[in-house]
């Protein structure tokens, strides 16, 4: 698991997705408490209680690498296979950057879409293609990607992560710059952060992020006091709920 957290930290910005799956049946509250106490710097997607469609193993730790096109590339013990995992990550991130596919057009579209996050530019290339299966497939990929990016803003707000939601909204504007209708919709998402209420939530979330930094710096005592102070008099909101959940995780004993 530590190697997966390292992969996430080093390669997330280049496009790697890391998913940590706790497989001993612990509940979500225990999982959150364990992570904050043991791996406070974990930023990877993490969950518990799900069966995985990867080659089976005889025990844990067990890992799998899935390529950009959904092919299972490797599976096994992550400690024994760390060198191979590193090689495959490098290989697949190169595809994210340069694109992949059967034709030069596919590669160009995907390089823009996944490598540069340029949704509008990718769609312009798709629209220049002749009608056919390739065009339909690439168009769908661009639409799915843009929908996901928009959905992420709402989801991060729901989680009380206003700072990250704001960053995603700014990114979405950049991704849609070359297409007027998409840009207008993206700007609306960003403008939603200009209200007084949103500004207050952003300010509160920034303070919680400082507390999270304290946790990463192993200053637990200061963190708990800081969270308790932030919550005093704070109105009910998704951000306050996030602070309370974090405080709860810090107080939960993990045996």
């Amino acid at each position, binding site marked *: 698991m530590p190697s997966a957290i390292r992969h996430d930290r080093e390669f997330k910005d280049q496009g790697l997705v890391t998913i940590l799956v706790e497989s001993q049946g612990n509940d979500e509250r225990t999982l959150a408490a364990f992570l904050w106490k043991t791996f406070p710097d974990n930023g990877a997607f993490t969950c518990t209680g799900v069966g995985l469609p990867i080659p089976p193993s005889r025990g844990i730790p067990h890992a799998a690498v*899935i390529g950009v096109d959904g092919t299972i590339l490797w599976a096994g013990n992550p400690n024994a296979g760390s060198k191979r995992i590193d090689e495959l990550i490098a290989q697949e991130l190169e595809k994210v950057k340069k694109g992949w596919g059967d034709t030069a057009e596919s590669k160009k579209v995907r390089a823009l879409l996944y490598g540069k996050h340029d949704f509008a530019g990718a769609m312009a290339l798709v629209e220049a293609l002749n009608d056919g299966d390739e065009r339909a497939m690439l168009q769908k990929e661009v639409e799915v990607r843009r929908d996901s990016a928009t959905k992420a803003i709402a989801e991060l707000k729901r989680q009380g992560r206003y700072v990250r939601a704001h960053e995603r909204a700014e990114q979405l504007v950049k991704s849609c710059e070359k297409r007027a209708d998409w840009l207008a919709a993206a700007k609306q998402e960003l403008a939603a952060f200009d209200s007084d209420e949103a500004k207050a939530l952003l300010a509160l979330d920034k303070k919680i992020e400082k507390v999270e930094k304290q946790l990463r710096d192993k200053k637990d005592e200061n963190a708990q006091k800081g969270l308790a102070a932030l919550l005093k008099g704070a109105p009910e909101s998704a951000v306050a709920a996030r602070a309370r959940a974090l405080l709860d995780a810090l107080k939960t004993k993990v045996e």
Partner: protein
Amino acid sequence: MRILPLLAILALTSTVLSQGPAVGDKVADVTFPTLINGDGRQSLAEFYGQPVVIDQWGIH
């Protein structure tokens, strides 16, 4: 004697099915429960276009 080839096919099919997915296969989709640090994407298919490392581990 005719039954032997049939039994052989059944045994082979059963072995293949019990082994589950293999390296080289396209990964099947799965929906995740709540993802800590998630961004709204809930299924593996939604990560298409990005390499994915899945790490199974245990607290204890």
